[in-house]
């Protein structure tokens, strides 16, 4: 199987889906030569830097029989388009009684670590999870990126693809033949028996590294990647916690009302799973601050493999 990067896997998914479906088109504030050459300037358009307008344009085109793919660039730019995302895209199918479909894919990079400070570093999944009407994917490998993005493009609803900027250059095996990864199906990235680590995006990789470190100390860590946040594979998370009796969550976002809080609730609200918990769950998240610039400050804000190891040890020590 050929190895390609996470970023290339996204591009390959986009190109293959645009080849297969003539109703797809692409809007972003720049148009790559590669895409324009392949699909023409009608279907690949550079927009003005006006996220609100081109987000709304996607909604109207989707309601008119097209399947737009939008790239906001960084997720922080999507905040300029909040009315169109929150009041329009999320609500429009429901508000009109389900009479039209709005198949739209919104791509955006998320995360920190690039020394670009607060307005270009964020992982605001839970802001969007709080809305009803949007699906969202969060791939952590090139394989998942390609498969999930294809599913997102083929979905008949608005789907946000959160793409980790720390993973863009990470390579992995991706089949040459067409495949998809369905939304709402978690992946057990590593099997284990002592503790369940639910890790998101970049922290899947840090979590796997932490599991390696702990294995040497005789601790068996199961690493689960939800892969999509809406819908969330609640059954897979509960099944793992029922097996291990312990839960740690690693997320590059802050903890407050975050995806991490939702995942804990998935576990603790379920009587059967709650009964199997040996210790309270633990979150290993970013600090609850805007992301700072200076390297020492930024690195202090984000969790890494060492923080995950410490979090897991804390849970194990508790019982």
């Amino acid at each position, binding site marked *: 199987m050929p190895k390609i990067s996470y970023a290339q896997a996204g591009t390959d998914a986009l190109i293959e889906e645009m080849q297969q479906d003539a109703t797809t*088109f692409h809007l972003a504030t720049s148009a790559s030569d590669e895409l324009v050459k392949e699909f023409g300037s*009608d*279907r690949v*358009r550079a*927009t*003005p830097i*006006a996220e*609100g*307008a*081109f*987000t*709304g*344009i*996607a*909604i*109207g*085109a*989707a*309601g*008119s*029989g*097209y399947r*737009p793919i939008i790239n906001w660039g960084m997720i922080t730019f999507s905040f300029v388009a909040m*009315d*169109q995302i929150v*009041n*329009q895209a999320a609500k*429009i*199918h*429901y*508000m*009109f*009684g*389900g*009479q*039209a*479909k*709005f*198949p739209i894919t919104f791509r955006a990079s998320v995360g920190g670590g690039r020394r670009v400070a607060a307005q270009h570093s964020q992982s605001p999944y839970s802001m969007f999870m709080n809305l*009803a*009407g949007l*699906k969202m994917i969060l791939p952590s490998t090139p394989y998942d990126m390609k498969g999930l993005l294809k599913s997102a493009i083929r979905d*008949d*609803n608005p789907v946000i693809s959160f793409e980790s900027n720390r993973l863009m250059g990470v390579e992995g095996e991706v089949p040459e033949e067409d495949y998809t990864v369905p939304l709402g199906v978690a992946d057990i990235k590593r099997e284990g028996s002592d503790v369940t680590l639910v890790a998101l995006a970049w922290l899947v990789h840090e979590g796997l590294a932490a599991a390696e470190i702990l294995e040497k100390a005789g601790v068996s860590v199961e690493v689960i990647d939800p892969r999509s946040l809406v819908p969330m594979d609640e059954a897979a998370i509960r099944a793992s916690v029922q097996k291990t009796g312990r839960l740690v969550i690693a997320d590059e976002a802050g903890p407050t009302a975050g995806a991490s809080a939702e995942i804990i609730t998935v576990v603790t609200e379920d009587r059967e799973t709650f009964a199997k918990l040996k210790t309270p769950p633990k979150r290993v998240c970013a600090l609850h601050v805007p992301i700072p610039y200076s390297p020492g400050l930024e690195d202090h804000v984000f969790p890494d493999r060492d923080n995950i190891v410490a979090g897991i040890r804390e849970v194990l020590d508790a019982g």
Partner: protein
Amino acid sequence: MTLTTEKQPRFHRDSKQLEMLRSMQTIRRFEERASDDYQAGAIYGVVHCYIGEEAVAVGVCAALNRDDQIISTHRGHGHCLAKGADLNRMMAELYGRQTGYCKGKGGSMHIADFSIGMLGANGIVAGGIPIVTGAGLAAQLEGKGRVAVSFFGDGASNAGPFHESINIAATWKLPMLYVCENNLYSAGTIAADTLALSDVAARAAGYGIPGVVVDGNDVMAVYEAAEAAVSRARAGQGPTLIECKTYRWRGHTERPGQEDPRPKEEIEEWRQRDPINRFATNLIDQGLLTEDAWQKMDAEILAAIEDAVKFSEESPFPEPEAAVEDIFAD
């Protein structure tokens, strides 16, 4: 009224004008009834009436085909009806019933009928402008000569989405009409206090597209301006901004006791320019309509609205459990 520019056989134009009159009167009677039923508690939340502005929706929609698309605002009943929406399903939606256009999930501010190209009333000022611009992009990609129309008010013309969308439509030459209904008030605020220019249409120059000011109470003037803009759009020459100067007779909403900054004399003055009475009188003067026929038409409209109310009253409310349906398309 100008009848010298007609491009259609005389009888087509005559019957079209009668249909336009019927459409305007249908909007008025529908809203009079909606307001009464709102006051009586049969319609919930909030209702915004379009009464006094009927010539805009009808004049523009008369220049459109069924598969052309429009988007509307919080004051959306007129646009829905002018585009051909069903009275029963509209009234049932206001009544919150299962048989309504949105199965009771939208209400007065969110009526849509995608089958007739009505992409919905929208409760956020300027929120619909980018969306219908996307319909314009779809029409351009499709290449079958369809057009899309954005209806919005003077208030929306001060908001970012108006400027961003027109800039894109002008740059891409999208087949669009941007129709500003300038009723002189942005909800409770005097529009002139929030707008440095006297004409919204003058802003078109900033985007390199035509901007036209029309008497929004003259339905044939609106129709002719729309027809010219539609021809231009279908020919691939891009969008037009049409500003229709008009006035709403009623308050911002039908909620009792709200503040209304408008002088009584001003309201009375605009009532004297009633777009419906003016058009009916004109058709009578031309010999296209008699007083009797006009009264008969009105009686038919009132009967149809009575039927719509009956249909709504007899329709079931949605099952409460339906609240969790339609979040996602299957």
